[in-house]
């Protein structure tokens, strides 16, 4: 019977049906970081347990690392404590860790793919909701809580409820100035921030087929913002070409054997989906969020919603969001003044994202009164960008060029908004207080749009820049 990729991967990793009806699922790759793992190791120790498959867990440090001065011990004592705990736990359990000295440290969802750890057909879990990123390779990847991190450390398994699959087909061709970020913001705007609860999203269609792995990762990354715990793309030639030669990808003849298996994984023609959605990708325009969840967005040439013209049930949420953001209903989003521009995060801090942002700022300068920073997703991204001279372009344009980490996406480090600052951000969440100031404000958009806003000092349509791709 034809089946979906999700079903094939699920079946291959299923240990047994548990008495309560859940599936005991083997986890092929477990990624850990310093925020959600220390308590899991403590719980495991308290029960006298050990790590069952230490070679299937990989650690890095990302959320709390300072991006300016990364010398140890960190001046930030709490950050130093958290990193030390991770180092100690990894050492005791025999878990491989990519630390600041490794040259391979970075945001866990950037590091896994670029090292070739993330591969098609795996089940991947991490105590971080953006684990959905790894689905770009045709893996089944999802975020878990700390008690589940403990379970994976103890047993390499999780007790999971089955997921339904919604195929989202994006047809056509993206217009210039429209990026993967705009595609996923469009999907979330249409299907809602909880539309994906209970589902894995399978992204398909001509636009996804033509996308690079970086772009597919951007889309899968924000699946969780639409409520879908997992999102994936069927592996194809693009996937295989990306993996070939990567450090932890199979080498030599093994790669060919792996490729044969990977090519058997895509959803079969005639597979049944629990739901299907089709989107004309050609009609998508550069998108900006205006509210306090990622579903509250408009095209850059649109105006903010007018509560009078929306269903009464939705009015309080719109009013609350507009009030928090200090924005006026009916006003154009273009022209909204910004204080901070942030290019970074597991959504959009890969080399291609930095290239797109650099293309916009080349020969221009950040507007007065705008603080702008570029935070590469990993040390490898930073090194590659420097080899291309991108750092010089950014620095000459007035951006700060930082070390790799989660930085201002969630401000668990020194990078944060102050007061009511308005931030044009290439990250994934515009929740109240997300960027560190309880009353700070976030506008989500593509890295190119962030770069354009940094230069203009306000939200501006990136399509008016001659250097747009």
């Amino acid at each position, binding site marked *: 019977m034809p089946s979906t990729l999700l079903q094939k991967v699920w079946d*291959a*990793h*299923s*240990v*047994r049906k*548990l*008495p*309560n*009806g859940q599936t*005991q699922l*083997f986890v*092929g790759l477990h990624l850990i970081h310093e*925020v*959600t793992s*220390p*308590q899991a190791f*403590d719980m495991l120790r308290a*029960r006298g*347990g050990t790590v*069952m498959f230490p070679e299937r867990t990989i650690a890095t440090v990302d*959320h*709390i690392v300072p991006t300016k001065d990364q010398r140890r011990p960190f001046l930030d004592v*709490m950050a130093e404590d*958290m990193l030390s705990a991770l180092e100690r736990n990894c050492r005791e359990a025999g878990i491989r860790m990519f630390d600041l000295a490794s040259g391979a440290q970075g945001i866990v969802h950037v590091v896994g793919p670029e090292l070739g750890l993330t591969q098609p*057909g795996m089940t991947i879990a991490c105590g*971080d*909701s953006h*684990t959905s990123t790894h689905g770009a390779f045709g893996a089944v990847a999802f*975020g*878990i*809580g*700390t*008690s*589940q991190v403990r*379970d994976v450390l*103890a047993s*390499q*398994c999780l*007790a999971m*409820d089955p997921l339904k699959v919604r195929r989202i087909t994006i047809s056509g061709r993206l217009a210039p100035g429209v990026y993967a970020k705009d595609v996923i913001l469009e999907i979330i705007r249409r299907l809602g*921030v*909880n539309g994906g*609860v209970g589902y894995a999203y399978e992204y398909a269609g001509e636009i996804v087929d033509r996308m690079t792995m970086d772009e597919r990762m951007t889309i899968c990354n924000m699946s969780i913002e639409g*409520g879908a715990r997992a999102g994936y793309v069927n592996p194809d030639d693009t996937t295989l070409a990306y993996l070939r030669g990567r450090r932890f990808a*199979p080498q030599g003849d*093994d790669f060919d054997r*792996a490729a044969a298996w990977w090519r058997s994984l895509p959803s079969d023609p005639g597979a049944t989906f629990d739901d299907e959605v089709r989107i004309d990708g050609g009609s998508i325009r550069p998108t900006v969020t205006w509210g306090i*969840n990622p579903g509250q967005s408009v095209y850059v040439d649109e105006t903010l919603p007018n509560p009078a013209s929306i269903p009464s049930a939705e009015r309080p*949420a719109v009013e*609350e969001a507009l009030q928090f953001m200090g924005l006026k209903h009916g006003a154009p989003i273009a022209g909204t003044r910004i204080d901070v521009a942030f290019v970074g995060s597991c959504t959009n801090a890969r080399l291609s994202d930095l290239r797109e942002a650099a293309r916009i700022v080349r020969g221009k300068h950040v507007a007065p009164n705008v603080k702008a920073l570029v935070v590469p997703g990993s040390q490898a991204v930073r090194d590659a960008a420097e080899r291309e001279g991108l750092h010089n372009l950014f620095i000459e344009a007035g951006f700060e060029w930082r070390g790799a980490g989660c930085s201002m996406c*969630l*401000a*668990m480090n020194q990078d944060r908004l102050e007061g009511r600052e308005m931030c044009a951000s290439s990250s994934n*969440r515009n*929740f*109240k*207080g*997300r960027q*560190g100031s*309880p009353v700070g404000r976030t506008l989500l958009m593509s890295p190119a749009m962030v770069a354009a806003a940094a230069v203009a000092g306000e939200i501006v349509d990136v399509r008016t820049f001659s250097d747009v791709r």
Partner: protein
Amino acid sequence: MSVEKISRITGPALPVRGDNIDTDRIIPARFLRSVSFEGLEHHLFEDDRRQASGTHPLDNVAYAGAALLVVNANFGCGSSREHAPQAIRRRGIRAVVGESFSEIFFGNAVALGMPCVTVSAAAASQLQSGAEQDPAAELTLDLESMTIQSPRARVPIEMPAAARGAFLGGSWDATGLLLERYEDVRAVAGRLPYVSGWR
């Protein structure tokens, strides 16, 4: 490992209104800068509370003894941080009643032995109004009969069968269960080409 069976939770309710209350609002990220969950309850909804200038229900002493939290749609969306249900549980809340929950939050709450049950939008609003009018009024959540009994009415509740079974059977802490069949786990791992080395 056998754990406590959970079937019935009785106590006053704490109403927190609003759809899409995300985990950054439940527990802002700056309070995650620690290697333990201790003390998180002191920062539950901290920024929302500050912005409400004392009018947030958590700042109302009448709700100090609340055992059930009553919320609206898509509660706990966003980050996977278990710190969110931990902060709620450590505040003394033993169950959450709402219109819907994010999947990761729901699973994290199960692992702490804190049931999240869903009710209709009308019922959620009714339970919230009841608690606002009489904060001392007790609700009884019963996973056997799948109802909540309030002084005013009896409301049907829903919960996926697996989670309900886990609470009623005392198997909501999954670690022991997952360790039962070590050989089966080894066998599945051995059949996976990427584990066995592509041979």
